């Protein structure tokens, strides 16, 4: 089998053909990205962090970067308008869809700009941070993003600014992106004492294979607070492979809430470096994996300074011939004393053909720490099912109710009502049971 893209140089060749007119520092970082990809190539089973991912179809063709903005697909128009009371940038096929942008009355101290403009207008900030944090070595798709990103967003919150409305970034793929790739790039900096919530949404049409490799870098300075809702609802044939990387300074707080509910092959890596004392990170995730889908969350939480805390809670519901991976690392560096770190992963299998992998990992190099992780895999509680059925609720509805009960905890952590309703609908569509029961929820 000679896969087209296994000869990695097709991407290198594409890169060479592009020839962009950009500042020198940016060209260098793009070059570093493509070199990182060239060095590793597509992941394979022998790479420990990628052992469960079968990239087969991904390597069979060359996904060229989409070169123009597409039209927002009709079906996705509501998605693009989700969370009405917010500032918004909409990207289609990796390029800005200018007509959808809502950036009126930005408060003083908040900069939201398409990244393409930002690298020219806000030279120093992107130069200092863009591509300086996300690790490319072990994530070939982040390397591709660094090399190819066409647009994205820069969000810069000045020190002391508390932003009361969320910033919504919508990344859509259109019909014209079939067999194409897009590389959304987001750079966020929250200055000292600043607060911001960002909603990052990925969606696309079903039945078309396309590739999306997003990279989000977050710099949270001292005592700032960053909340990110990361929602992945790609089309059923899509490949979504991306990462979120956050650097936390002293007393900074980060909350990432992820939903993975689409794509044929979807993986998001969340890297968090707790670099200053007293920093706190909370990572939550819900993955709903249907027949023929593969969903993967990898977390890498590194406690580099003492007195930091982190919490992770990831829940998965699998049906049909679904496959999921949760791989979570807690790494406590030497000297990071008084670390308090917890991690939980719960998986619910609704079908005998579903396969859940759960790899909670601890690496601890300091002795005065509290670290715990737990992991469970199982089906719905038979006793609970029986209880509901004995009260006249049909089996399917009972299963639906219990599935909802399992996943609802994650919904409650979303924090934005409009978004919670949206995710609730996605959950209702996914779970067993008929419409009347779902209306009750």
């Amino acid at each position, binding site marked *: 089998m000679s896969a087209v893209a296994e000869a990695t140089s097709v991407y290198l060749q594409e890169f060479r053909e592009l020839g962009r007119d950009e500042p020198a520092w940016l060209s260098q970082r793009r070059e570093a990205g493509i070199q990182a990809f060239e060095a590793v190539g597509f992941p394979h089973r022998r790479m420990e962090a990628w052992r469960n991912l079968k990239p087969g179809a991904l390597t069979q063709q060359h996904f060229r970067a989409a070169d123009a903005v597409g039209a927002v697909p009709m079906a996705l128009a509501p998605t693009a308008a989700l969370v009405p009371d917010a500032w918004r940038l909409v990207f289609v096929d990796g390029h800005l869809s200018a007509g959808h942008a809502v950036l009126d009355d930005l408060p003083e101290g908040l900069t939201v700009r398409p990244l393409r403009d930002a690298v020219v207008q806000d030279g120093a900030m992107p130069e200092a941070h863009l591509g300086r944090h996300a690790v490319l070595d072990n994530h070939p798709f982040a390397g591709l993003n660094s090399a190819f990103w066409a647009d994205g967003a820069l969000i810069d919150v000045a020190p002391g600014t508390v932003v009361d409305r969320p910033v919504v970034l919508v990344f859509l793929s259109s019909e014209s992106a079939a067999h194409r790739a897009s590389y959304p790039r987001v750079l966020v900096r929250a200055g000292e004492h600043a607060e911001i919530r960002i909603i990052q949404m990925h969606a696309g049409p079903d039945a078309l294979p396309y590739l999306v490799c997003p990279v989000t870098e977050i710099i949270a300075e001292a005592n700032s607070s960053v909340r990110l809702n990361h929602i992945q609802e790609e089309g059923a044939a899509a490949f979504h492979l991306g990462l979120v990387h956050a650097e936390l300074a002293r007393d900074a707080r980060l909350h990432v809430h992820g939903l993975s509910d689409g794509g044929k092959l979807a993986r998001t890596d969340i890297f968090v470096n707790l670099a200053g004392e007293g920093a706190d990170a909370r990572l939550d995730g819900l993955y709903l994996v249907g027949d023929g889908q593969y969903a993967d969350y990898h977390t890498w939480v590194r406690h580099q300074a003492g007195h930091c805390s982190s919490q992770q809670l990831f829940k998965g519901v699998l049906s049909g011939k679904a496959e999921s991976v949760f791989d979570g690392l807690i790494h406590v560096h030497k000297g990071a004393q008084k670390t308090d770190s917890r991690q939980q992963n719960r998986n619910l299998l609704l079908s005998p053909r579903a396969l859940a992998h759960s790899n909670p990992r*601890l690496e601890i190099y300091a002795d005065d*720490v509290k670290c715990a992780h737990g992991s469970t895999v199982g*089906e719905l509680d038979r006793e609970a099912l029986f209880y509901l059925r004995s009260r006249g609720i049909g089996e399917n509805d009972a299963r639906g109710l219990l599935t909802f009960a399992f996943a609802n905890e994650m919904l409650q952590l979303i924090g934005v009502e409009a978004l919670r309703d949206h995710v609730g609908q996605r959950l209702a569509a996914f779970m067993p049971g008929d419409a009347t029961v779902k209306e009750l929820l």
Partner: protein
Amino acid sequence: MSANTDTINELTRKGYEYGFITDIEQESAPPGLNEDTIRFISAKKDEPDWMLEWRLEAYRQWLEMPTPAWAHVKYPAIDFQAISYYAAPKNQPKSLDEVDPKLLETYEKLGIPMHEREMLAGVAPEGRSNVAVDAVFDSVSVGTTYKDKLAEKGIIFCSMSEAVREHPELVKKYIGSVVPRGDNFFAALNSAVFSDGSFVYIPKGTRCPMELSTYFRMNAGHTGQFERTLIIAEEGAYVSYLEGCTAPMRDENQLHAAVVELVAHKDAEIKYSTVQNWYPGDENGKGGIFNFVTKRGLCEGANSKISWTQVETGSAITWKYPSCVLRGDNSVGEFYSVAVTRGHQQADTGTKMIHMGKNTRSTIISKGISAGHGQQSYRGLVRVLPAASGARNYSQCDSMLIGDQCGAHTFPYIDAQHPSAQIEHEATTSRISEDQLFYCMQRGIGPEEAVSLIVNGFCKDVFKTLPMEFAVEAQKLLEVTLEDSVG
């Protein structure tokens, strides 16, 4: 601080009391590994042709394999051409009576009873109960006790070389059936050059009347020990098997790459206990044994049970995963482990439980203690295959850290492919709390004793599964090992 250093040094040294070398005439193969080395070993053991072919095939597979690098351990690359693959005392005894007295003395020093007559006559030292011992010295077995008594019941307990000669049909049927030749890098190496080990066969419906035990001793320098153990329990049989090991103190790293295969047929039970106390290297991490071992048990028949218990206190590097393949319906796998790393020791150990049959159950209890510069990882896999309805697993791995230079890591892998499977994994990491220490000390218990008390409590779940004598030994070992490690 410096005033303490001497005492600490002394204690660290004292910590390993089996580090002597037996001065005995030995013959060994010249260092190096090629097909001729394998032919030499095979010829030395007077093996049939099929065995030699099997070895050579394994060697050819090994040549193709890359050295694995995924484990969480750091060590210099091993030069496989610098190791001698065969070493044995020159005078090979025909029976137990002819064993070189120097060897008997060695085993006496190690506390291993080699005198069956004394014991039968009721003058057993220290009131030890009857244990049949197979003593392996470098590459050969120097004697097996109670063979005749066991043979009355139809039990075969002998060295592997003897089994290849006397019971070729059994060996041929089972060798490589649980750990195939090409299973992994070190298993392939072992399959090519394995020297001695124990062979146990328990016939149908027999309960082995005494504990069987093998004691491995590495003596010669520049050698590796590559033993192979095979235990077969026929339908309804039961056996409890113990394994112990020590080696002299040397500045070089020596390689120990063993393979252990267990087969439990219907209703059979095998209990396998290890107290591993290879030389761990000195306080600077110089020398010590590389213990890279493949151990796997197959619960072949319904209702069979395999239980692994290990106490790992020795070796510079330990890298092993005693595993259970639960093929029979209702079969049970257990893994109990206490691993201690101190000084510059590293351990990457754990287990694999592969659930294939219906209603299979497995339990994993792992306790890791890390002190000094020790680095310790628990790595485990629980896999539930699509046919394994009703599979149940409970895993708990706790780590204790003593000192701020050590590390404790946990890498459990859970792959569940059946909805009725119930899998739970829990892990915690902590250190001995000030409160616990204070409580003990205000009641007049010294700090070292207090640590030992707390650590023993921490390990109790595992120790209580060990056979009585072993449990006592393990507890003592833990005390010695942790002597200089107070917080």
